[in-house]
C-alpha cells in the first residue's frame, strides 16, 4: 500500500465524500497510475480514504491509501497526480510505511472568523461548558464542545482571526467543527464567511498521524 497526501481547497470543498470516490478513480486513470484492481466480476481499484471530510470544509493534508499493480517512482506519480487533478486539489506527498488509518483519533481544524466577531467569540469560548446536540443517524446526543476540544489557540490573520482546535475524529467518536460555528451563531446571529480547514490528523496520544 502507498499513501497519497493531498489538499482539497477552494471550491473543491463542495465535493462530497461520495463524489470523492468517483473523482479519485477518474484522477487515477487520467494520471495513468498503475493502480491495483480487485479481481472478479466488476473490477475496481481499492481506495481507502482516511476520514470523510464534510462538505464545506477544506483539507490541507487529506489521506488516501491504495495499492499499486506495478512500481512507479513517487516523484513521477506526484507530478502525474497534479496534472490530472481537478481544480482545487494538490498532491503533496506520497510514501510507503505508515500508520494504519484506524489509528486516527483526532483532527486539527482552523476556523477563520471575520475579525468583528472576535470579542463575541472570545466571550463565547470562555464559558465552562458549551452543550450542543449532535445528530447521528439514529438519535441525537448532547455533547460538550468545551470538554471535547483540545489545545486551542487563537491567531490574527488579516481581516480574520484563526481559531485552531483539535477535535475527536475517529470511528469511535467524531465531532464536526461546524458544530462550533452553529453554536456560536445561536449566540451572536448568522456569521457569513467562516472558513474551516482540516489541517492534519493525530493519534490517541496526540502524536502526529502519518
Amino acid at each position: 500500500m502507498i499513501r497519497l497526501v493531498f489538499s482539497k481547497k477552494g471550491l473543491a470543498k463542495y465535493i462530497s465524500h461520495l463524489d470523492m470516490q468517483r473523482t479519485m478513480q477518474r484522477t487515477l486513470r487520467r494520471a495513468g497510475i498503475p493502480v491495483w484492481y480487485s479481481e472478479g466480476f466488476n473490477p475496481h481499484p481499492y481506495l481507502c480514504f482516511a476520514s470523510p471530510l464534510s462538505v464545506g470544509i477544506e483539507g490541507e493534508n487529506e489521506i488516501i491509501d491504495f495499492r499499486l499493480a506495478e512500481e512507479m517512482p513517487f516523484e513521477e506519480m506526484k507530478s502525474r497526480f497534479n496534472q490530472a487533478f481537478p481544480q482545487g486539489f494538490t498532491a503533496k506527498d506520497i510514501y510507503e510505511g505508515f500508520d494504519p488509518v484506524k489509528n486516527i483519533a483526532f483532527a486539527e481544524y482552523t476556523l477563520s472568523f471575520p475579525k468583528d466577531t472576535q470579542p463575541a467569540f472570545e466571550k463565547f469560548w470562555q464559558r465552562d461548558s458549551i452543550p450542543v446536540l449532535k445528530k447521528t443517524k439514529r438519535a441525537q446526543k448532547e455533547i460538550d464542545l468545551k470538554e471535547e476540544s483540545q489545545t486551542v489557540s487563537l491567531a490574527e490573520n488579516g481581516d480574520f482571526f484563526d481559531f485552531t482546535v483539535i477535535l475527536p475524529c475517529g470511528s469511535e467518536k467524531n465531532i464536526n467543527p461546524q458544530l462550533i460555528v452553529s453554536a456560536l451563531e445561536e449566540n451572536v446571529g448568522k456569521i457569513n464567511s467562516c472558513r474551516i480547514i482540516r489541517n492534519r490528523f493525530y493519534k490517541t496520544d496526540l502524536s502526529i498521524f502519518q
Partner: protein
Amino acid sequence: MELENILSRVQKPAWYSGGEYGSIVKDLSQVGIRFGFCFPDLYEIGMSHLGIKILYHCLNTMPNVWCERVFMPNLDMEEEMKKENIPLFALESKDPIREFDFVGFTLQYEMSYTNVLNMLALAQIPMFSKNRTDTDPIVIAGGPCTCNPEPIADFIDLFSIGEGEEHLKTLMNLYLKCGKNRTKFLQEAAKIEGTYVPQYPPEKPVKMQKIQDLDSVEYPDRFVVPFSQVVHDRVMLEIMRGCIRGCRFCQAGFLYRPFRQKSPEILIEQANKLCKETGYDEISLTSLSTSDYDKLPELCDNLLVYCMPQHINLSLPSLRVDNFTKEILEKVQATRKSGLTFAPEAGTQRLRDVINKNVTEEEIEHTCRIAFEGGCTSVKLYFMIGLPTETDEDIKGIAETAQKIVDLYYSLPEKPKGKSIQVTISLATFVPKPFTPFQWESQISLEEIERKQKYLKSQITSKKIKLNYHDGKTSVIEGVLARGDRRLSKVLLKVFENGGKLDAWDEHFSYERWIQAINDCGLSVEEYAGRKRPFDEPLPWDIIDIGVSKEFFIRENKKAYQEKTTPSCKLQCAGCGITELCSGDVCPGGKKQ
C-alpha cells in the same frame, strides 16, 4: 463571497461550483465573445447531454470565443440566489450571463420551455426579444425543438436550425464582422442559411443545417467530467447520425436524416483520447439505432482490445431487435452483463406495420432466446399507446407480447439456473410531432390515455411482468407545445408567471396550471393536439425546411393507413427529398453507393 455563502446552504453545491476537470477557463483579455451555453434543466440532466459537449468544444476551439456552461438552478438554489440578488451566472467564471454577448439555449424537449423563461428572468435579461437593446445579450436557440420554433419565438432573437457545429462558428465570425452590433448582426444573420430571426420573417423556408462528413467535423477530445453523479456519466461516442428506418412516429428519425456513419478508425482514435482525457471507465456508443452501423463488429472488436485491459466497459444502447445477433450480444457481455431493452412500440403486427416499425414476433422471440441462453434474466420493452388506428386489440397485444417472453423463458432448457425472469413494460403515450408522417394526426385525450393504461393493466396477469407508465397529463401539454404556434408564447408566459418551471419533473409539473393558462388565452388543447389536421392546412412549422419533403410525409401517412411498410433506406430509397440538403451513406449518389 455571497456565492460561497449560499453554496454552503444548498443541497447540491457541486452543481454550481464549477471547477470540474476539463472545464475551460480562458484569459478574458484574449476573448472577444462571451457565450453562455444554457441547458434549460438541472445540472444532472444537462451534463448528460452530448450536444452541449460538442458545441462547447466547437465554440471554445475559437481562440477569441469563451463558451461557458449554464444550467437551471434547483429550487433551493434559486431561492438563495434571489435572496442574495445573485443573477444567473456561468459555471466557469461565475460571471452573470446578462453581461455576455450570447446566451444560447438548447431546446431538447418542449417541457423545458418554461425553464428558458425562468432562466432569462433569473439572469435579469428582458424576457421578450422585442424589449432587448444593444446592452443585452443576443438570445439564441438551437436543438431539435427548434424545428417548430413558433411557440417560443417571442422570447428568442435568433434560432440556429439544424446541426450547429459549423453554423455557430459562422455566426460568431459574423458577429465580429458586424462590430458586435446587435441590430446589424441580427439583420445580417437573417440572410444566412439555417438562421431564423423571428424579427425578420424569412421569404423562403429556413433550410436546416447538416454536416456532410462526420469524419472531418470537430468532435470533443475532452469532456467536462462532473464531480457529482449525472444521468449519463461516461464517454459518449457518436458513431453516426440519422437513421435508415423511418418509423413513422419518430421525429428524430426524420430530423437527423440522412444516415451518415463515422469510420471505425476515427471512432477508435476518439475513444482512446476521450478515455485518457476524462478518466471514465465506460464508453457508450450513441446513435438512434446502433445495430445499423455497418461495421459494428469491427468497431466493437477494436474497442474491446483497448477496453478490456484497462477495465473499461462498453455499452451499446439503442440496439434493435431485428438485427440483433449473438455475436454482438457476446461482445457487450464481454465487459458487462446487463438487462436487454427492446422497443417493439406496438403490440400487434398490424399496428407495427402502421407505424413502420419493422419488427416481427419471431424476431423478438429469436432475440430473447439468444439473450436468455446467454444468461440474461431481465428484459425491458418499450411500447406506446395512442398510435393512429390503434384499438384495444393492439393494447392487449402488448400484454401478450410480454407474456410470450415470460413463457419462452420458462420453456427453455438452457435458462439461467434458479433465476426468474423479469419483463418490464415501459409505456409511453404517442405525441404527434412536426416533421413526421403523423404530424396531421389527432392525439388521444387525457381520458383515453387513462382508459388505455387501465385496460393494459387489466390484461397483465403474470407477476413476472411489471408495467411502468407515466401520468398522461404531461403528454397532453407536450402535444400542445410540439405542434403549437406563436399564440402559445402568451401561454408560456402565463404558466411561468404562475410559478411553472421544471415542468419535465413530475413533482413540479402542474396540469391545472397549464390548462388554466391555455383557457385564459382563449385557446384549447383540442385545437392544437386533439383535432386531425387536413393535409392542405398550413402548418406553423412550414417556415422550416428540414429537407424531407411534405409530399413524402403525405405518402407515408397514406401508406400507414393502408398498413403498408416502407423498407429501410439500406434496402430501397423511399425518395424522402433529403438529398437536396445532404446525401447520406446510402442515399442515391451517396458515398457508399
